[in-house]
């Protein structure tokens, strides 16, 4: 439950600010000049703040749309991401956000129309479809009842079929999608992990079965579905764990509605990983054998290749090869 709202001066009178404030009538409201005053100071601890994050309402001024990292590739040539929100409701132990930001507060940029303009302009630069990934610095749907961003974005994308939207989520907040007609240029991509991994590492996120249930409903309603097995987590029983898991997931999948599957193992920029270990030195996942090249931390190449090759082989028993994409990258 959000009990504190920081409100940037520039958006104090914005209609979305007023709507969100009305949702939290008892929340303490604190005005600030710029969201960075609250979000960026060094004297903050992500782990402590995650116990009770506040919501910061702000305006974004530039860099609405940025080129996506190489790992964000589901078949398009032109890949971009945008972040209408920073930070996530969930507390996944492998998430780079906890290593990147000092603050666990959520920042919501309420000037959605500026994102629209940037997306349209970017899509118009290409003859081929341009892909826009929304779940990079946040979960695309987790806070949808409050933000209404996905509903807004879908209206925009519905008018621009050359722009493909990926909503990446672990959430079951799918009401906004079920309540409207489907559009062909949107993929609702669910990040999934085996149940035991999800229970151990994906704190506060819906269980695997709830995510599969939400996925099933969207699929039935006609939405294109994506599956994101990223990061795959190494453990000694990974073969039985992931083989059983893929069987469980694909029992829910209609291959006709399946847009894409992506697969990647855990990797993290060195500085983010160092910060994450400082926050959770006793975390079992961080204690696994990992190699540190001073820029990236990842499983040793031999383990990574063996694990990914196994997962790929297993996945291809359930789905066609042309829909499977590898998450390979140099940096996040």
């Amino acid at each position, binding site marked *: 439950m959000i009990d504190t709202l920081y409100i940037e001066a520039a958006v104090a009178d914005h209609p979305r600010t007023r709507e969100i404030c009305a949702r939290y009538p008892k929340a303490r409201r604190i005005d600030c000049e710029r969201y960075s005053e609250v979000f960026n100071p060094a004297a903050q*601890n992500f*782990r402590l703040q995650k116990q009770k994050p506040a919501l910061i309402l702000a305006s974004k001024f530039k860099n609405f749309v940025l080129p996506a990292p190489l790992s964000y590739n589901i078949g398009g040539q032109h890949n971009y991401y945008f972040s209408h929100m920073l930070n996530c409701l969930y507390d996944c132990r492998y998430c780079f956000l906890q290593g990147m930001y000092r603050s666990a507060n959520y920042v919501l940029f309420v000037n959605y129309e500026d994102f629209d303009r940037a997306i349209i302009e970017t899509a118009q630069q290409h003859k081929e479809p341009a892909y826009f990934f929304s779940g990079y610095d946040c979960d695309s749907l987790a806070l949808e009842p409050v933000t209404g961003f996905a509903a807004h974005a879908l209206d925009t994308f519905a008018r621009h079929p050359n722009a493909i939207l990926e909503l990446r989520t672990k959430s079951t907040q799918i009401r906004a999608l079920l309540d409207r007609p489907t559009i062909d240029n949107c993929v609702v991509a669910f990040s999934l992990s085996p149940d035991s991994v999800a229970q151990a590492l994906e704190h506060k996120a819906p269980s695997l079965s709830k995510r599969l249930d939400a996925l099933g409903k969207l699929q039935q309603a006609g939405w294109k579905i994506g599956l994101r097995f990223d990061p795959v987590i190494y*453990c000694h*029983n990974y073969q039985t764990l992931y083989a059983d898991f893929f069987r469980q997931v694909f029992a829910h999948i209609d291959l006709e509605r399946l847009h894409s599957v992506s697969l990647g193992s855990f990797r993290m920029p060195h500085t983010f990983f160092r910060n994450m270990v400082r926050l959770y030195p*006793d975390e079992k996942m961080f*204690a696994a*054998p990992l190699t540190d090249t001073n820029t990236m931390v990842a499983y040793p190449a031999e383990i990574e290749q063996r694990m990914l090759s196994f997962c790929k082989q297993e996945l291809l028993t359930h789905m066609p090869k042309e829909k499977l994409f590898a998450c390979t990258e140099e940096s996040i």
Partner: protein
Amino acid sequence: MINLIVALQAEAKPLINHYGLNGRATAGGFRLYQRDDLQLIVSGKGKLAAAAATTFIADDNNHAWLNIGLAGGTSMTIGESALIDKITDHSSGQRWYPPHVINSPTLRCALTTVDQPQANGGAEHMLYDMEASGFYASASRFNSGELVQCLKVVSDDCHNPCQSVDAALGQELIEQQLDAIDHIIQQLRQLLTTQQEMFATPEHMARFLAQWHFSTSQQHQLKRLLQRWQALAPACSPFNDALLAQRHSRQVLPLLQQQIDEIESYF
């Protein structure tokens, strides 16, 4: 350690009595009181004095910090208390936002730190004091903002100017807030415990350091290796025959790493 910073002896007295704090002879011109994990320093009036007192009791350890004091303001009733979630330094315009993760029924309010007492009660929804900006600017250099908090008790407003607040009233106003203060201190203790988990020295570290000589850089490596050991095999001791047979730390570290990499972990 929970550090309490108060400006005046009258504000300190109810806290000293309530927590049974004992005076400590100290250099530096500050009165210092302590018992168990509580430490109280009387800073004197003003933000510079508050900053100096804070720095005086800070050391390498992670402390929680609570500035307790009187404040003026028209938006609250005299005798009410508030946790401060925005501090503005009036003379510099600088602002701080102490993050609030503690669960407390205490009201919250913004505060401006001024150099001279406010005569007219000031703006609405704002408290005024003379220490908080100095305290917060200093204490937040020593620990994370979640563990640096200010609790202010309203002592004066436009109808009851600060000149009318004497030591007896100040003492009484703080006394009335002891339950709220207790609650906040308890919450800070819990946060401090969580933070201490992050910085804890791993089990077995001391025995390693006693057994072999490690350079500073090797000690960092050893600490991380022992954290990994603790995460993967908390019930086992790393002191096996192979390790104990090593003479030098440069042999110990790779062997320990190899043994950790071989520990099986399951989800």
